[in-house]
């Protein structure tokens, strides 16, 4: 879309169409009117307009030159994600939104509050979910295609709680800043998932000895609308794919898996970067090497294999793929900024998790980390679910306080209270969550 305007006048899209629709077509969509006054949209221009109106345009050949797409002319409202409330929206195309910490308070994060991380566009909703088809192929003895309805009937149905966290949760904390969505603390959630074990499905297809990694593919259209491009395609090593809590799921918190969360079918590989849990799942390709789809290579979902100084350029060969997420916790009550009573017990609570591991202890501090108090910690209902912690604190006098939380996993590894090791794409910031309260 090369464009050279005769005069450097800056104006909005509507105005541009109003004044000179054909030029608007050409600058915005690369569309050139033909002799019959119909614009011929093709290639990138067609993809662009499709991306903007949110769908492909079947009758684009009939579209008069200079016609402003009605979807644009009408919709001037603020962006709102259907079925979501109270979210912090980082981006609307692709959709990326996190949950404010106080809305993470329930043990199961409600669907309306569960974070959304998309790399591409949301596909159209399946009219018949049970007819959704999943392909299992690659390093298996019997490649198979199976419909969701048959998946439900032919394999043991399993329900677990599992936490998902974006690999880039906390990215906002890194300096120099890393590119990507600037997640703070809320790109995490814990839901109840119903599905089948990926292990059962892979065993039915018969894993060959050469199977070492999965490669997941989904139906989400690429931002460019190029049908040959995958938005993202990540996978997990065989030991994680065969973990009894790595599922292929169709239900989230007792509801049919919502479209925005990958409905009708997705992977849930809890405890690993959320991107391993492919949404709108159409294929599990069993690989004989580490999967190399979009999002697996270069610096994506990778951190340096050795510590580097902030801002260092790291060669691709020195980057290692992220596996289990590190130990972390969040304070969900009280809400940051709340007024509380001085010199009276105050209840503080939240959740803690540690990727594939369990959390052994949680401590809280109200004096900027000078002293720590042990919190009560509940066992997880199953591995990979987050754990509830709570503590009663007392703030000795009026004034401003910060409450900090620090979890320790069952190998004795704790959250750092400062930002951990810098990495080029800003992953794995598991530093202590801090909230502020005023005692009066």
């Amino acid at each position, binding site marked *: 879309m090369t464009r050279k305007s005769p005069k450097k006048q800056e104006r909005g899209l509507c105005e541009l169409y109003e004044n000179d629709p054909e030029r608007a077509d050409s600058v915005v969509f690369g569309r050139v009117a033909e002799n019959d006054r119909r614009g011929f949209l093709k290639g990138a221009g067609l993809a662009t307009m499709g991306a903007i109106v949110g769908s492909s345009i079947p009758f684009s050949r009939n579209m008069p030159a200079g016609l402003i797409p009605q979807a644009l002319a009408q919709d001037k409202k603020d962006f709102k994600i259907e079925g979501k409330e109270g979210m912090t929206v980082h*981006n609307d195309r692709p959709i990326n939104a996190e949950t404010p910490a106080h809305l993470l308070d329930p043990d199961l994060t409600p669907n309306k509050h569960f974070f959304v991380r998309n790399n591409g566009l949301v596909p159209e909703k399946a009219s018949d979910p049970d007819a959704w088809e999943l392909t299992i192929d690659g390093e298996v003895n019997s490649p198979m295609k199976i419909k969701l309805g048959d998946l439900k009937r032919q394999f043991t149905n399993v329900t677990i709680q599992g936490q998902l966290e974006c690999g880039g949760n906390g990215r906002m904390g890194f300096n120099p800043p890393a*590119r990507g969505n600037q997640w703070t603390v809320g790109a995490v959630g814990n839901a109840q998932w119903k599905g089948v074990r990926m292990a059962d499905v892979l065993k039915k297809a018969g894993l060959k000895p050469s199977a070492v990694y999965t490669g997941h593919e989904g139906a989400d259209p690429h931002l460019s609308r190029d049908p040959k491009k995958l938005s993202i395609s990540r996978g997990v090593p065989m030991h994680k794919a065969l973990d009894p809590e790595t599922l292929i799921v169709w239900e989230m918190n007792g509801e049919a898996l919502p479209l925005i969360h990958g409905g009708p079918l997705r992977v849930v590989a809890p405890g690993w970067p959320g991107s391993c849990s492919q949404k709108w799942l159409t294929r599990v390709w069993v690989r004989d090497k580490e999967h190399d789809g979009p999002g697996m290579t270069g610096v994506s979902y990778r951190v340096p294999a050795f510590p580097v100084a902030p801002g260092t350029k790291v060669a691709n060969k020195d980057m290692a793929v992220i596996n289990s997420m590190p130990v972390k916790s969040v304070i969900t009550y009280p809400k940051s900024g709340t007024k509380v009573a001085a010199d009276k017990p105050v209840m503080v609570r939240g959740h803690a998790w540690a990727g594939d591991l369990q959390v052994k202890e949680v401590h809280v501090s109200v004096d900027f980390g000078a002293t720590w108090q042990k919190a009560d910690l509940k066992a997880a209902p199953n591995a990979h679910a987050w754990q509830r912690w709570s503590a009663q604190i007392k703030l000795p006098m009026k004034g401003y306080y910060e409450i900090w939380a620090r979890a320790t996993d069952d190998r004795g590894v704790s959250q750092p209270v400062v930002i951990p090791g810098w990495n080029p794409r800003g992953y794995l910031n598991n530093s202590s969550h801090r909230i502020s309260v005023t005692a009066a």
Partner: protein
Amino acid sequence: MKKAFVPGGRFTPAAVFLSAALGFATAISSPAASQAMPDINELPEGPGREEVFYNCYACHSFRIIKQQRLPESTWDELMDWMVEKQAMPPLSPDDRKAIVKYLGKHYGPNVPR
């Protein structure tokens, strides 16, 4: 100067048909369809603003840009990444220069968030 076929304006049968087709396409599509109309004033004034407005919005919204604080050199690398990995049509050298300069200035490492 020709008038645009904006709703409420002059309609031809083709335009009416097309509006209906687009309305249908929007109705069956995903939540992603409910995007706000882009407004160039979402972006700070300055040389390169128009180039950023038209080229970037083709694939993604401005929210992802505004979150970033990156030096010009990183913005420049991102242009290659978008061409190589994200199917962006290559920019003309002039546009690219203008875009990278604009982004480095308005969304550089020292700009307050």
